[in-house]
């Protein structure tokens, strides 16, 4: 037998899959799911807080009343009734939309994929906050885009940073295809773009003819009052808006939507039909009933109360246990806190030690397209109880302290 790479298809793959490979981080996360590990690495909404009995009855009614239709194919754009109901949801955030302008997708993630396919050629420049949502990076990188990060602070994306980014691209004689942003309770950073900056960012985008893709999964997951209205509520032109029921209802239903101008909408529709024919009818019908028959806004309050307590527990534990030099954001909503390790520490290198102490987090590098993020980490507070979160932070603080010691030992060693 001569040499083999155990992959007979090497010469046949599309260039966009080159570089897609399993890394050791994947190996480490397989341990993070073990029950003895306190995982602050998750990203799941706490679906156990849903009224399962009531949902069970709803699903039973659904199947007996419209089961045949719900289990068949449906129009590519999705059901009109649900799109109308979703327009009602959007109105609560100040967004005026017509049901005709919504395209229902299999989670907002599919919306990102469709937008990437619709707008991006290999090498095209995409602007995004640094750090940004790892799933968006996946979609843009699969389209072979050149993602350029823009700086953020506690008030979100920095307008001057956007100006500078655009100027740098112009100096290359190029243009960015769009700006991808999560203005409210950003994933992973947890920060929110302020009222003033929203207007500034829109003004800059308008001046430069820059298309904005606004991803807004978290704005209803709010703990300290209502966040500023979405960008799309302020500008009907120049903003494509992505929404989802993953955080207000159930991520497992995989239902999201894209609100886009008619010309873009028509292209997305063709793309979705080529991709999946149509979104799941069962999911759409369940979501419609959740929004029209159930006390969904009450349910969102239940989630928010639960998450607020858990966020507070995480913040309190960080304050109580973490050594000097460690910093973190204070999110007003969403599911995540973004923490920065003391100088000279590396969150990726530290992960095996953390897992040994039975605590997990997501190292920051996954949220950047350019290798940054080594000092940073994302901590989730939606999936564990306050007590478990506290215990997880206590363990993590011990690991950080031990890494500081290791850093000091080897800094003396001439690192």
């Amino acid at each position, binding site marked *: *037998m*001569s*040499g*083999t*790479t*155990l*992959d007979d*298809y*090497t010469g046949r793959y599309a260039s966009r899959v080159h570089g897609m*490979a*399993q*890394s*050791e981080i*994947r*190996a*480490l996360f*397989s*341990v993070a799911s*073990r*029950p*003895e590990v306190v995982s602050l690495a998750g990203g799941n909404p706490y679906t156990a807080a849903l009224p399962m009995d009531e949902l069970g009855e709803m699903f039973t009614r659904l199947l007996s009343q419209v089961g045949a239709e719900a289990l068949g194919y449906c129009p590519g754009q999705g059901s009109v009734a649900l799109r109308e109901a979703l327009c009602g949801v959007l109105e609560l955030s100040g967004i005026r939309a017509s049901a005709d302008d919504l395209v229902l997708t299999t989670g907002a993630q599919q919306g990102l994929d469709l937008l990437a396919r619709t707008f991006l050629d290999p090498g095209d420049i995409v602007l995004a906050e640094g750090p940004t949502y790892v799933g968006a990076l996946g979609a843009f990188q699969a389209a072979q885009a050149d993602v350029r990060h823009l700086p953020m602070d506690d008030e979100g994306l920095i307008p001057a940073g956007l100006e500078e980014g655009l100027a740098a691209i112009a100096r290359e004689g190029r243009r960015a295809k769009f700006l991808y942003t999560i203005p409210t309770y950003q994933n992973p950073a947890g920060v929110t773009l302020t009222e003033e900056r929203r207007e500034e960012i829109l003004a800059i985008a308008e001046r430069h003819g820059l298309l904005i893709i606004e991803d807004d999964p978290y704005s209803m997951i709010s703990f300290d009052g209502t966040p500023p209205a979405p960008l799309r509520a302020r500008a009907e032109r120049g903003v494509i808006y992505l929404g989802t029921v993953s955080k207000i209802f159930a991520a497992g239903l995989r239902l999201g939507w894209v609100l886009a101008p008619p010309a873009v909408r028509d292209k997305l529709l063709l793309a979705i039909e080529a991709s999946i024919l149509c979104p799941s009818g069962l999911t759409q019908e369940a979501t419609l009933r959740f929004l029209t028959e159930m006390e969904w806004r009450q349910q969102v309050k239940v989630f928010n109360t639960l998450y607020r307590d858990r966020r507070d527990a995480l913040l309190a534990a960080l304050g109580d246990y973490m050594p000097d030099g460690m910093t973190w954001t204070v999110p007003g909503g969403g599911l995540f806190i973004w923490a920065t390790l003391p100088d000279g520490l*590396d969150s990726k*290198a*530290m*992960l*095996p*030690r953390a*897992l040994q102490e039975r605590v997990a987090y997501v190292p920051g590098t996954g949220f950047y397209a350019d290798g940054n993020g080594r000092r940073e980490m994302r901590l989730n507070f939606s999936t564990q109880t306050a007590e478990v979160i506290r215990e997880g932070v206590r363990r993590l603080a011990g690991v950080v302290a031990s890494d500081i*010691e*290791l*850093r000091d*030992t*080897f*800094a*003396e*060693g*001439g*690192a």
Partner: protein
Amino acid sequence: MKEGAAAADIRVLILAGGMSYEHEVSLKSGRRAADALQRLGFACYTRDLDGELLPALQEFPPDVVLPLVHGQPGEDGSLQAVLELLGLPIVGTGSTGARRAWNKIAAKDLLRTAGIPTPDWTSMPRQAFSDFGARKLLDRIAAKMGLPLVVKPNSGGSGLGVHAVHKEDDFPSAMMGCFSYSDTALIESFVEGRDIAVGVIDLGDGPVALPPVEIAPLHGDYDYAARYNPGATRWTVPAALSEPVAARTAELALEVHRTLGLGDMSRVDLIVDDAGGIQVLEANVAPGTTETSLLPMAIEAAGLDFGEVLATMVRQALART
């Protein structure tokens, strides 16, 4: 339960998963082994390690256990010791041999005492660097051993935490990377040469070496990504070695297997330099059986069926009781 029982009457428990970073690799190894044994009709089931394992084993004892848990506690001998306490027959190496092979530094001591060539090394616990000063210690190690060096965690596999040091500036970060996985570092002289792995199996007539496998990562080192992504490494079985060199790798692998007291199956990793000189790096008692693992590749290259080999080992384990 008798050795000659029908396969369907033999309950084989495959233990896979575990608490180490090789959890997922182990699950893959377990699935592949389970599939191979099920095809041959064995009543095979797979289970992860957890707090309920002991009561489950006591309540429904399997006839044979095939531990394929990588890392701790699957390879360090503790899982084997627990199974021995319960009186359950094990496929593979017992607790004593596993303990010897797991501790890379102790294993190298045994190999050198037995006259088996292995690269020069020193070992250093994390604590020593803060006690004696990292700079002084690293300078001394570099001066004494020369560069390049390879820094490895004293225990563990899949290339995790292994770093080559080509210049002194790389030393501190290599040490820190190593201490992510173990509190003791094995610092070994880097031997330039071809990476060769030799599987050893024992089908009842004593240990036999399988054809050597040459490992050539297409880009960079044979790290985690190169090991587990099809297409990232070229494996050649049998390795293109001259007959005397190939024979010597086989001989050395068998000597390692015997010296460390390994059983049923093992994998010995070696380096063959341009002059045909051979150095033994380490031995593994729970070699991977995933689709990119070396042992099943070598078994097939020897003209044997992976499932049949496992089946024979299962029956041998039964006969040992």
